[in-house]
């Protein structure tokens, strides 16, 4: 009896395959499978009962899920646009600085170096209605007479969360846009000046189209980040009060680990991932179009 011999290349790649399968493929398939079952963490036997569209149907007909979904899209839209505008402004200003630009660039990246959990705690403190910086400042300046319930009111809490997101991640935009500004060809800008453009028109018609691919890259990266936004929200509001700041992932996290309804949580997770993918594909298509417009064909 001869043992079947694997070709050496396969043998050498085997450890990589095995590790990838163990850490990516198996959990992925398992979670997908479990989303077809009424899997409950405290009742393992529920894993063996397939009840396919049930979890998905339940998610798609649950008003709470759609509210979280909508809130996530809203957060994504507001945060990304704000970060884009602020990042653009920041990059434009930094690119004009003559001395100490290197230091500024490094400082600009500081917020990215913090753990989102810490950022969450920091902003939770800043917006705390009793001892928070914001309320203290507003009250001592006489702009507010009573404490504003920043983290309690739904809209205000969303605002506070957006502040934290923007504070932490504007530099992603700033840095990518700055890279675009460094690569900006000077000739067309000079041509635009001679062609009669005001500085604003030069920016609008020459600089901005050139920066668009860089902006879309940043958007794509950030859309992945925000769509899975969990840590900051979890720390600041925990999705509350009364689910008023519930986002997809805080909802999924609670359903899975607090309520132990893992099958249902996984089903919602897969829907949320579709949302992420949709945003990323959208920005990627925009990126491709912007590049084609600039004649940077693939």
């Amino acid at each position: 009896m001869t043992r079947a011999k694997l070709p050496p290349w396969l043998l050498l790649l085997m450890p990589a395959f095995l590790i990838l399968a163990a850490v990516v493929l198996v959990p992925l398939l398992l979670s997908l499978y479990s989303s077809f079952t009424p899997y409950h963490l405290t009742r393992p036997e529920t894993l063996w009962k397939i009840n396919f569209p049930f979890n998905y149907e339940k998610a798609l007909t649950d008003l709470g899920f759609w509210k979280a979904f909508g809130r996530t899209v809203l957060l994504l839209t507001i945060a990304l646009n704000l970060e884009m505008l602020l990042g653009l402004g920041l990059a434009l200003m930094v690119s004009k600085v003559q001395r100490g630009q290197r230091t500024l660039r490094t400082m600009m990246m500081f917020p990215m170096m913090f753990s989102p959990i810490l950022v969450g705690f920091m902003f939770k403190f800043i917006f705390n209605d009793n001892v928070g910086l914001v309320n203290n400042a507003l009250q001592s300046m006489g702009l507010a007479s009573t404490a504003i319930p920043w983290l309690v009111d739904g809209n205000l809490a969303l605002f506070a969360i957006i502040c934290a997101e923007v504070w932490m991640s504007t530099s992603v935009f700033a840095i990518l846009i700055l890279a675009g500004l460094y690569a900006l060809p000077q000739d067309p800008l000079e041509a635009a000046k001679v062609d009669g453009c005001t500085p604003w028109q030069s920016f609008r018609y020459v600089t901005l189209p050139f920066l668009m691919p860089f902006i879309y890259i940043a958007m794509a990266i950030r859309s992945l980040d925000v769509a899975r936004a969990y840590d900051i929200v979890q720390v600041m509001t925990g999705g509350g009060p009364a689910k008023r700041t519930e986002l997809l992932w805080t909802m999924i996290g609670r359903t899975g680990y607090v309520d132990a309804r893992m099958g249902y949580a996984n089903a919602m997770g897969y829907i949320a991932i579709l949302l992420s993918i949709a945003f990323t594909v959208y920005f990627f298509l925009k990126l491709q179009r912007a590049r084609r417009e600039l004649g940077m064909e693939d």
Partner: protein
Amino acid sequence: MAQVHLKNLVKSYGALSVVHGINLDIAEGEFVVLVGPSGCGKSTTLRMVAGLEDISGGEIVIGDRVVNDLPPRERNLAMVFQNYALYPHMTVRENLGFSLKIAKKSQGEIDAAVNEAAEILALTPLLDRKPGALSGGQRQRVAMGRAIVRHPDVFLFDEPLSNLDAKLRTQMRVEIKKLHQKVGSTVIYVTHDQIEAMTLADRIVIMRDGHIVQVGTPLEVFENPVNTFVATFIGSPPMNLLPGVAKDGQIVLADGTAIPLPPGYKLAEGRRIQLGIRADNIMPEGHALPPTAHMAHVDMKVTLSEPLGTETVVYAQLSGTEVQAKMLNPRPVQTGEVLRFAIALDKCHLFDADTGLSLKA
């Protein structure tokens, strides 16, 4: 159309001064070429006229306005850049019409102007392409078209042809000349190529190290160069320069060869000079222009010959200097052959050996 006046124009970058007080008056509709070696300050001068560089001193007048502190958009001029500087995200049509759009012209006017320019420059079939899909020559034409549609007071060209291959360059040179004859605008054209300068210019401005060395029509600077720099810079092949000393009404070269003094020059005995002879004025006997009243003859050994078809450039040794001569109706020439050359003395130039300045009275 407008006149342009540069008065004591100065440019310095910090302590580094690159343009040292240039004075130049350009008439309405004139085609002026700034020419000089790389780094002599031509582009800087042009960019100051355009308003793309601040002026460190002096004055620029366009039409009857001092424009020193006006931004480019208020100077009503058009510029063609060396690297074309097209807008990469716009089609040829949008590139051409951009300045008109900025000037808030109606779409009808823009279309008319764009179509006219495209017609002149044979760009009509390319109107809907992006610059990325054009060849170098086509991009160059778009850049020119973008300038034409504006009907500016002044056209500025900064080495517009230097990225093109030789054949295209010759072709575009003709196009530019025709264009100028057609639109008649004032043109300031920068190049380091003396042939471009000679063929295009109404007047040539020769620059060196941030100074103007000589201003004149192409023939003036060719026939009466003010110094050895202009003499060797203008004309191809460059003028031969032979060091010598004035003695007994003759010029004695380093190796003792004596050549009669060219007519019209008076030199003090013992004055050290440089004798300038263009290749067209030193030719092998039997292959030369008909002799004139003032001829001299020298024997030279051939070191190299370059047949060009209608003529051959012969390199030969005279008094330790390599001299280029032209041979008309050429025959094959062997290296090492000794030929007798005729020099047209009345076409020769004398320059001071130390200052390089022309000694013409």
